[in-house]
């Protein structure tokens, strides 16, 4: 069974694998920037699913494309805010390890 025979299933399996690797990254990393990379992997996996269902099923129409565009835009906003927070944490603690940053105020 090759890709062009069952394209939807192949894309879904790829997205599931990306999702699991991203989840593993989020679970095991201590560095906040690395955790953010894991979040990006998970968002990309979800996006692949949106586009795959949009392109390979009849009821999908174009709506999955628009949803994935919104996901990309929200990921941009999320990355900007997360990196601002990370820089703030770095200024306060000198490190960006998430298990060290356990105080709301200094």
């Amino acid at each position, binding site marked *: 069974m090759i890709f062009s025979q069952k394209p939807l299933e192949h894309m879904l399996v790829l997205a599931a694998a990306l999702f*699991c*690797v991203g989840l593993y990254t989020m679970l095991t990393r201590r560095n906040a920037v690395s955790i953010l990379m894991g979040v990006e992997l998970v968002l990309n996996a979800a996006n692949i699913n949106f586009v795959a269902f*949009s392109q390979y099923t*009849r009821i999908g129409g174009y709506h999955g*494309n628009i949803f994935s565009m919104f996901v990309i835009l*929200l990921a941009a906003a999320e990355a900007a805010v997360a990196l601002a927070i990370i820089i703030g944490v770095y200024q306060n603690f000198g490190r960006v390890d998430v298990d060290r940053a356990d105080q709301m105020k200094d």
Partner: protein
Amino acid sequence: MDASDLWLNVFFYLFAAGALGGAAAVALSRNIVRSAFALLAVLVSVAAMYAIMKADFIAAAQVLIYVGGILVLIIFAVMLTHRITDVNVSNDSAPGLAAACACFCLMFSIVLILFYLPDWRRDPFQSEAETVVAGDLELRQWQADGRTGLALGGATHEEKAVLDVRVMRGPSDGAFVEFQVGEASPKAVPIRGGKATYTADALPKATSSGMSPTVQWRARLVGTSGEELSPWTKPLGFEVHKGVTLLAARGLSGRYLFAFEVVSVLLLAALVGAAFLARKEVKEA
């Protein structure tokens, strides 16, 4: 399998390997700069996946926003928060046996559901058929499993009948513009006494000139001198794997306009919030 299919497969497996290898490097690399550049490989491979799925606009947006914007931000943050000298020890990860087990179980169950519970694939339009009878002629329009076609039958004395197929595409939801299929239609088909079956491939060229994945078509039979033998069949849709950029643009300027504006306000708010969070603390004297 023709040449374009072959290349599609080759590129899919190539970029799938790129995406998974890059993701593994993101998850496992000891050097955070290596992780960031492996993320670059993943994002470019995912953009290629969108291109393979013929979602051209999303592929371009992925390259512009993810690779050009988010990744640069991430690398920027890596450079800002670490002294370059201790970059080798900065990316340690917790011992992740339990996490690995959890992720593996999740992957296993997703694949299990995908291949052994095919209910998720059920499509309300999956199987439809309509038969139009005109005298002793029979025109059956069917749709099943992503394919669609026509079946002609019935015992008739007519030498020939003309099959008039029209393909419609929707500029927006619900409204359909009708246009006549190229030279090939209306086309005369011999139906004397026998049966003829046409699938979407044999239908006229408009099957591939449509823009949208939701092209619909209907058919009727007319006599050789143009008189109507049967009424129109009900419109059935079929898939055309073409770019959907035009449709998505129409959706964004119509149905999704409000959401689009809300997103732009959100981006502005995120910009202001990020500037506020990252500013230098000014101590009141």
